[in-house]
């Protein structure tokens, strides 16, 4: 491997000490002088007309400063399709609809006042499944679109599809075909730090928002629109991002509670903080979208894939978030996971009176990798081919252009398949454990690894500001939410500029000081930050070296004088310094400027800080601030056709699992798991392992435990007692991580994005192992003991 100083090393997490000592400040810890506590009154019905709201008693509670409803505040439209409102008027469409809100001097007064708000409803019939919503004559969740046009059905006006080749001919020509219907549940992102924000106006009507967001700049745009609605057109929002207690996709939209905090702050003239408690987080924050998928795929006699036909139906809930664009990412595995020449894809989203959904890690990818990889094992069984061999035979290769038009650059899928199966001892174990109900299964993934273009710009800006002490302060608009962005940013800047990581300080993310970034999603954080850092560093070094020409000879003289003082016998190098001090002759590494021709000569090296001071404090001197904007060379796909090279590279991986199934109880025990991922290049082993381990635990939860349960739109398990996420005990099995380094050219130092892939193939790998163990296939996540038992009974009948 190359001579990196810091890339690939275990560079320490810069904010780790603050987090381990309780110093890090989350939204829950922020206060402002005079701050009020905001609290929201949520709907008591899933679908109803609002007949009357009476806030008089609430307003009389001592300590209450403001009580607001949609009837006494300007309308603020929100959401991806602008079909949602900060506060609801006339009708509610889901249980969590925001009807009124209170700001009070203490949380108890706010809670008491919210209880005293009286709302009279006229209940309406609701639709709670996609089938109900699609039925002829079904009640409409939205009678009109956001532009006021009447709506005829509950189907969203978003078209996602793909057609390539000739599906019907391929189906007829296939020797083996597997098909099935699969589903994935609503799950809760379950950030340990709940959602919240703090809104404060200055005297001129400009807003400062401390927000738990992953999209500070799109949020700024959204909040500025809200300011316009308040009559504050032209005023500005500054979004500041505190420490985030987890993100996982919950920060990809702006939320009604944020606009409510703005309204309360505007009405009361005081800073207002709203923080959800855990029950509110479960009941009133959008969960991950559920999906139902019908899949058919086929292969020829040898096992080569011939076609794949996938139809997805998604329950969108009552309003539309960015999460409704899940099918944009579903297109990747559907068209491009393994080589398949003929592909058809359709996705439909429908409004219901259920809680509306939003993004979570993987963003549509796990939803369809689940049916694709499960059904692939059925196909292997039909063809009598080992599932590993089927996958190897159809493996993606570098240089391929997929039906979606993805230009595959590097591709480590084959190495991942081989590593995962090899480490799990697949050949020895597969199909041999039925008697003891043990089995092995595997599944792979493709995901964007070099940004993911789903917005007009997929770019990221960076500013490097240098001081007199050899430090670089980095302003970057992406969000550190625990994944380690600031750690790799620190490493990347140190490596690219040629200084030490201790001298790199990453500023708090703040729209007032950081340049634009589209958001921290699509596993793009480290990829974009690293590339932006490289771009800025290259320009900075050019300038530094030009200025160094002017100061280097004098600084060398100082060195020589100092060396002579220390050692009278010292003889300066026989070197024409003035002639050698040319911009092109310098290098800067680990905080020292030196001549490439004489890297080790102590007389011919200057410490970085000294160089900066020498350049600053001279006649017509200068200081350095360097910006750069990295915009990946990608295409915004045509979604209705499902075509476009949306990322600069693609990440691959394979997970292989061994399980044991208890035939009496249906319980599934994971015995071992190997996760092999094509990461391009390991930037930092500690944060990389953290990303994969954390995603794996979410994948295990998705596979075996997690489901937000609802009845007629009401969430039935709004707490961790009834909504089970894996604990240290559920994760008590050997996990082996294998990192395949493919040295991706578009990646910073060769790296690909890795944030999401770890949870994408976990569930189908487990399901395939269960199939190998006991011969039954569960098609609905989570795979609970009840479902396994039912499948075992059905197979015996």
């Amino acid at each position, binding site marked *: 491997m190359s001579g990196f100083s810091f890339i690939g090393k*275990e560079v*320490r*997490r810069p*904010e*780790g*000490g*603050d*987090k*381990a*000592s*309780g*110093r*890090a*400040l*989350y939204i*829950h*810890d922020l206060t402002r002088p005079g701050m009020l506590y905001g609290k929201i009154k949520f709907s008591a019905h899933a679908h109803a007309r609002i007949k009357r709201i009476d806030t008089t008693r609430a307003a009389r509670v001592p300590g209450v400063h403001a009580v607001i409803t949609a009837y006494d505040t300007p309308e603020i439209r929100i959401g991806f399709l602008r079909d949602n409102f900060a506060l609801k008027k006339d009708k509610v469409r889901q249980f969590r609809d925001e009807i009124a809100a209170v700001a009070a001097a203490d949380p108890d007064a706010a809670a008491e006042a919210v209880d005293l708000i009286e709302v009279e409803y006229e209940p309406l019939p609701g639709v709670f499944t996609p089938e109900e919503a699609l039925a002829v004559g079904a009640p409409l969740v939205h009678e009109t679109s956001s532009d006021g046009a009447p709506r005829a059905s509950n189907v969203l006006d978003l078209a996602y599809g793909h057609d390539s080749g000739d599906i019907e001919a391929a189906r007829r020509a296939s020797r083996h075909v597997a098909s099935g219907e699969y589903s994935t549940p609503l799950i809760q*992102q*379950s*950030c*340990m*730090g*709940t959602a919240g924000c703090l809104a404060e106006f200055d005297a001129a009507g400009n807003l400062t928002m401390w927000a738990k967001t992953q999209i500070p700049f799109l949020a700024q745009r959204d909040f500025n629109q809200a300011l316009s609605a308040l009559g504050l057109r032209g005023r500005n929002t500054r979004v500041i991002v505190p*420490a*985030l*207690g*987890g*993100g*996982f996709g919950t920060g990809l939209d702006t939320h009604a509670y944020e606009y409510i905090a703005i309204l309360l702050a505007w009405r009361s003239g005081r800073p207002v903080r709203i923080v959800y*408690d*855990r029950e509110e987080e479960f009941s009133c924050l959008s969960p991950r979208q559920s999906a139902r998928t019908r899949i058919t795929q086929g292969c020829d006699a040898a096992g080569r894939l011939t076609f794949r036909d996938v139809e997805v139906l998604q329950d969108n809930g009552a309003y539309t978030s960015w999460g409704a664009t899940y099918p944009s990412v579903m297109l990747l595995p559907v068209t491009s996971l393994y080589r398949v020449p003929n592909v058809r894809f359709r996705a439909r989203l429908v409004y219901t009176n259920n809680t509306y959904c939003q993004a979570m890690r993987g963003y549509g990818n796990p939803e369809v990798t689940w049916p694709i990889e499960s059904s692939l094992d059925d196909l292997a069984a039909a063809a009598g081919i080992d599932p590993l061999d089927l996958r190897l035979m159809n493996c993606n290769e570098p240089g391929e252009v997929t039906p979606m038009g993805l230009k595959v650059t590097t591709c480590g899928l084959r190495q991942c398949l081989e590593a995962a199966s090899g480490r799990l001892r697949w050949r020895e174990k597969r199909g041999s454990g039925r008697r003891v109900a043990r089995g092995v299964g595997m599944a792979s993934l493709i995901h964007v690894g070099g940004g993911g273009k789903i917005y007009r710009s997929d770019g990221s800006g960076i500013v490097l500001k240098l001081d007199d002490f050899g430090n670089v302060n980095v302003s970057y608009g992406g969000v550190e*939410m*625990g*994944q*380690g962005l600031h750690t790799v940013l620190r490493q990347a800047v140190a490596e690219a500029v040629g200084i030490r990581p201790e001298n790199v300080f990453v500023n708090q993310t703040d729209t007032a000081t950081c340049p634009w970034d589209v958001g921290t999603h699509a596993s793009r954080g480290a990829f974009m930050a690293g590339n932006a850092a490289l771009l800025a560093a290259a320009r900075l070094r050019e300038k530094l070296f030009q200025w160094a020409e002017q100061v280097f000879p004098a600084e060398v003289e100082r060195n020589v004088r100092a060396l002579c003082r220390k050692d009278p016998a010292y003889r300066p190098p026989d070197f024409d310094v003035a002639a050698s001090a040319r911009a092109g002759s310098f290098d800067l590494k680990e905080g020292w400027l030196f001549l490439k021709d004489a890297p080790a000569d102590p007389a011919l090296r200057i410490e970085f800080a000294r160089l900066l001071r020498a350049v600053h404090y001279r006649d017509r001197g200068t200081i350095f601030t360097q910006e750069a904007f990295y915009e990946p060379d990608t295409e915004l796909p045509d979604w209705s056709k499902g075509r476009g090279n949306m990322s600069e590279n693609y990440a691959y991986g394979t997970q292989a699992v061994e399980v044991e199934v208890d035939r009496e109880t249906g319980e599934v025990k994971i015995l071992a798991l190997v996760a092999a991922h094509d990461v391009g290049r390991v930037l930092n082993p*500690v*944060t990389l*392992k*953290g990303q994969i*381990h*954390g*995603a*794996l*635990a*979410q994948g295990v939860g998705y596979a075996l435990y997690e489901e937000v349960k609802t009845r007629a739109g009401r969430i039935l398990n709004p*707490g*961790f*007692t009834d909504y089970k*996420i*894996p*604990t*240290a*005990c559920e*994760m*008590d099995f050997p*996990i082996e991580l294998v990192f395949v380094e493919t040295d991706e050219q578009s990646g910073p130092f060769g790296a690909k994005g890795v944030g999401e892939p770890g949870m994408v193939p976990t569930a189908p790998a487990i399901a395939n192992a269960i199939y190998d163990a006991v011969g039954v296939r569960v098609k609905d996540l989570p795979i609970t003991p009840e479902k396994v038992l039912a499948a075992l009974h059905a197979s015996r009948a």
Partner: protein
Amino acid sequence: MAHVVSFELNGRPVSVQAEPWARLIDLLRGPLGHTGTKEGCGEGECGACTVLVDGAAINSCLFPALEVEGRSVTTIEGLQDASGRLAALQEAFVEEGGVQCGFCSPGMILAAAGLLLRTQDPSEAEIREELAGNLCRCTGYAQIVAAVQAAAGRASSREGQGA
């Protein structure tokens, strides 16, 4: 109606007013300004609020404030030494990758600290068992367990050298 409770917080005596219904976490995060203790659920389900009372890990969101009268409470702020240097356990959490978003970290670290007070060299199973009440959504626990093992190992090797 409010009572005054007096106890030792991170080695220093404190006296603070508390309503009879107040929870320990309310005192810590409110009048005492120790916001390192996190509230993740308020229901005893997540462990983010874990602190040590007389050396035993408890959920401060369930613990009545008045019951700390005369007892000794350790929060995350109390683990580092007087000069602010992190304790070996905290260091291990940072180095091994046991900290990501960090919201579970104070509670997780104190739960582990409680275990290490009882058992100097816990097995992996004991560590996992002990931490089962502390939820973490970021790490998948592998590096947290490694951090506790590393800290325990360091402590016992130091003792070994001293002996």
